[in-house]
């Protein structure tokens, strides 16, 4: 016991030392190495989950972004410098997203960050980007009702996915009784609100609405309810594992696309491949891009992607967005000839055009969302989609859905907004471009 | 009156009647030896008294109060200490702490929280440690002790708890002959100022201690009386035929 004193103190010393050095020491060492490389490269943060439940989709975004960066560097980079991706694994946990965002901004001092997939992750990092005035390019379709100064949204917003989709279902398919199934978090809930608004507008009918826990894979009950509700079309915004389990069990309970088709704004080629085409065939998806899009740009994009990541890989809309977002960033950097955040946000990125695989896309000058080409695809027996409808013109993004928020809009060229945003974050915490009209 | 009195005690385990309407009592300051062939219900009786099991019928009176069906710790607080068949202490604690934890005193959480070891208590601990000849091992964790020493340590712990009645369940199991003898002496020392109920197989030990003996058979008292008289008893010899002969 007595001899224990010295021992215990020795331990405390050793332990404490170990603890501290291990937190700070190597970390700074690594950081300094990175610093040495600085100057001849432009750092770009890649912030996706490579492990955990969301890694399934986010890894493909991460791949697409790296592909684009390689291509850009192959063409000589930007301003004579190479783009240097700083990859972080966010482990599908929102806290880690927040952590790593801080790291990228404070320590790596990246020019901009490409990243996030779920709304949860975006909302967890946005406050940080606003506080430290970074640039986030967010390539995912999302529920809208948001426009932050520090974020550029290159994915579809509801008015680009639903405004034509719902009427099309009602008119062309002639199906009016909707049953809504969704995962239990913000994206499906907001989307379904909009769907309901559209139904009211176009004379559709909402016969049921149900939410399953994220990662839920037992849908027999929900399917039973669907068949009981007399619905003639299912609107699903399930995500992740749930999608696959739902379609499989749907088929096993003997419901085909001819009886009750599943219409969804989120099921991609990746899921149809995972659930087995025979389970998906005939069901409908509304997206701005499908692998089957018939343009030379897309053909070569798919080829290059498969060449880099393997034959059996499929491309999807979110990946396409991730891909052209990277090009947007490169072009913007070239345009403003600096990595200054405000320059990128106000001159660089707005109005950027790029001839994406899915057709020419453009970042809106006013609301920092992206003009896209809505399409409706019908799943084929080979897991690809037949494009059964394509909008004639590029659709303007509408961050504030007009059916829900008629008196709101987002405009970063508006005086009031600019006034507000001139102030530093410490004085003015509201960094959104929302204005009332 | 008797310190411990057991009336009509009955218990069954999975259908077998272990104790069958057992009547039995121990006087103040006596050293009582409990004999009996295997399965006679000796250990069960101990378990009943110490509250490990609840009897189906019957009453256990201790020191004038009915302790039937009490929780073990309450029974201990009432003044009954138990020594297990297998040596049974706190392996990672030092010998000293083992005894210290067992010291008599209030055991309520909050009363106990701020208590320190008083000089008197410390002296008591060392007294005991020397009594059981483990003083020079006071700093060693208990699991470094040999089997015999473990048995002794547990006896020491019981002394520290200083109960009115000690239940000793075969304290000499697995000891060498001289180990047994020394244990027997130790028990006699203890018995000077405690009441002891001893379960023992080894006749040499019993002879050595040799006071009043109770023989259990099939869950009932067969004979009770001074050793030599019991040994002479015909029924006892019958019971023990084929089993360990009473030589």
């Amino acid at each position: 016991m007595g001899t224990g004193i010295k021992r215990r103190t020795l331990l405390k010393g050793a332990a404490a030392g170990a603890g501290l050095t291990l937190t700070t020491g190597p970390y700074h060492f690594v950081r300094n190495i990175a610093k040495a490389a600085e100057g001849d490269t432009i750092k770009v943060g890649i912030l996706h989950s490579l492990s955990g439940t969301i890694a399934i989709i986010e890894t493909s975004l991460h791949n697409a972004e790296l592909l684009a960066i390689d291509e850009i560097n192959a063409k000589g980079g930007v301003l004579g410098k190479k783009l240097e991706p700083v990859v972080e694994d966010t482990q599908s946990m929102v806290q880690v997203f927040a952590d790593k965002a801080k790291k990228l901004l404070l320590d790596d001092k990246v020019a901009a960050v490409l990243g996030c997939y779920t709304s949860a992750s975006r909302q967890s990092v946005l406050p940080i980007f606003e506080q430290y005035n970074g640039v986030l390019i967010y390539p995912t379709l999302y529920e809208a009702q948001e426009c932050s100064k520090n974020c550029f949204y290159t994915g579809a917003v509801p008015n680009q996915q639903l405004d034509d989709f719902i009427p099309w279902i009602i008119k062309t398919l002639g199906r009016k009784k909707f049953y809504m199934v969704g995962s239990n978090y913000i994206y499906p809930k907001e989307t379904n609100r909009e769907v309901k608004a559209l139904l009211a507008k176009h004379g559709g009918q909402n016969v049921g609405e149900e939410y399953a826990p994220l990662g839920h894979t037992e849908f027999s009950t929900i399917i039973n309810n669907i068949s009981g509700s007399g619905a003639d079309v299912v609107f699903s915004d399930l995500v992740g594992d749930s999608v696959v389990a739902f379609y499989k069990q749907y088929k096993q309970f003997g419901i085909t696309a001819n009886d009750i088709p599943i219409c969804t704004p989120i099921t991609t080629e990746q899921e149809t491949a995972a659930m087995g085409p025979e389970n998906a065939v005939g069901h409908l998806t509304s997206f701005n891009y499908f692998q089957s899009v018939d343009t030379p740009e897309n053909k070569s994009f798919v080829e290059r992607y498969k060449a880099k990541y393997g034959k059996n890989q499929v491309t999807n809309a979110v990946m396409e967005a991730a891909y052209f977002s990277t090009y947007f960033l490169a072009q913007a950097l070239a345009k403003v000839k600096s990595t200054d955040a405000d320059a990128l946000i106000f001159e660089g990125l707005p109005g950027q055009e790029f001839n994406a695989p899915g057709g020419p896309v453009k970042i809106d000058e006013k609301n920092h969302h992206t003009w896209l080409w809505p399409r409706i695809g019908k799943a084929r027996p080979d897991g690809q989609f037949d494009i059964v409808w394509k909008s004639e013109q590029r659709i303007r993004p509408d961050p504030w859905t007009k059916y829900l928020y008629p008196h709101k809009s987002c405009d970063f060229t508006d005086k009031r907004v600019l006034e507000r945003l001139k102030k530093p974050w410490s004085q003015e915490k509201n960094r959104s471009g929302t204005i009332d009209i | 009156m008797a310190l411990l009195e057991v009336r009509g005690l009955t218990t069954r385990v999975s259908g077998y009647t272990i104790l069958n309407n057992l009547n039995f009592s121990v006087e103040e300051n006596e050293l009582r030896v409990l004999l009996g062939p295997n399965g006679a219900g000796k250990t069960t009786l101990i378990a009943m008294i110490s509250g490990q099991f609840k009897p189906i019928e019957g009453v256990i009176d201790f020191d004038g109060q009915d302790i039937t069906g009490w929780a073990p710790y309450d029974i201990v607080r009432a003044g009954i200490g138990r020594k297990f068949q297998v040596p049974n202490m706190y392996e990672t604690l030092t010998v000293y702490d083992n005894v210290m934890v067992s010291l008599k005193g209030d055991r309520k959480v909050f009363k106990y929280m701020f208590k320190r070891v008083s000089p008197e208590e410390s002296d008591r601990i060392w007294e005991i440690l020397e009594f059981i000849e483990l003083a020079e091992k006071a700093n060693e964790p208990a699991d470094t002790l040999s089997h015999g020493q473990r048995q002794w340590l547990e006896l020491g712990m019981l002394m520290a708890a200083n109960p009115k009645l000690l239940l000793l369940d075969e304290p000499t199991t697995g000891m060498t002959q001289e180990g047994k003898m020394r244990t027997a002496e130790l028990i006699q020392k203890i018995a000077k100022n405690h009441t002891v109920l001893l379960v023992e197989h080894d006749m040499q030990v019993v002879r050595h201690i040799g006071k009043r003996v109770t023989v259990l058979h099939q869950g009932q008292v067969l004979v009770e009386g001074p050793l030599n008289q019991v040994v002479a008893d015909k029924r006892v010899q019958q019971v023990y035929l084929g089993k360990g002969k009473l030589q």
Partner: protein
Amino acid sequence: MTQALISQVLIGLSVAAILVISAIGLAVIFGVAGVINMAHGQFIMVGAYTAAVIGQFGGNTFWAIPASFIVVALLGLIVERAVIQWIYDRPLETLLATWGVGIILEVLMKLIFGPQLYYVGSPKVLSGGVHLIGRLPYPYYRLFLIGMAILMVAATFIVLYRTNFGLKVRAVRRNRAISGCLGIDTTRVDMLIFMFGSGLAGVAGAVLAPIKSVSTTMGFTYAVNSYMVLVLGGVGNLLGVPTGGGLIGEAETLLAFKYNSVIGELLVFIFIVIAIRVFPRGIFGYYERA
């Protein structure tokens, strides 16, 4: 309404079957070998991936079942030899070690197969369903699952209670030292029983893959559910598995039918915690003497 309810009860049966199938392997490893196997979910996951690979070569579930059993049993052998055999006497620490094993398995599988979801089809024979009651047909595959559940429980019962090996297993479980002295090769018994349990987990993966999604992260949920089933039913008694599974499965589906899936899950968990407080050793668990 009543029709829907009855069909719901039937569906509940299949859910129960799924729970039983995923729990039976754990019942052997946890209940018999006494190892708190946190990697159970990952074992199931490996089984499912085996089925996926078999599928790539054109084999269907019936091929996948033996294949997964063998593969995961071998995996179990490796884990047991490398890790578990040293810590049988420290059950709570098997929890930590196997947690590590689980992580490693997940990462390895991700490195080998990539992060995307994998596809496992159900055999042609079992596509379609039979009209029992209500509007919906009852899928053959779910009948098959119920059959599998019964089969697996029966098989385990026979192995544990009707074979010489099972006798040894139970002997070792009661008292390792003594059975060792009686000339039972305890190491071999431990090894085999762990392999058997793992194999069952593999089978679970193989038969569940066609109705669930197959990804490297699928494991955790199964592990959790299995533990719930076991603890509710009672560890160390085979009857506990179907009981626990049945109760949870039916409760979950009926509650989900009455309210919704999320509330269903919630209520079931609460119900379990209360139940365990009432039966500390589970409904069928036996009490250690003393």
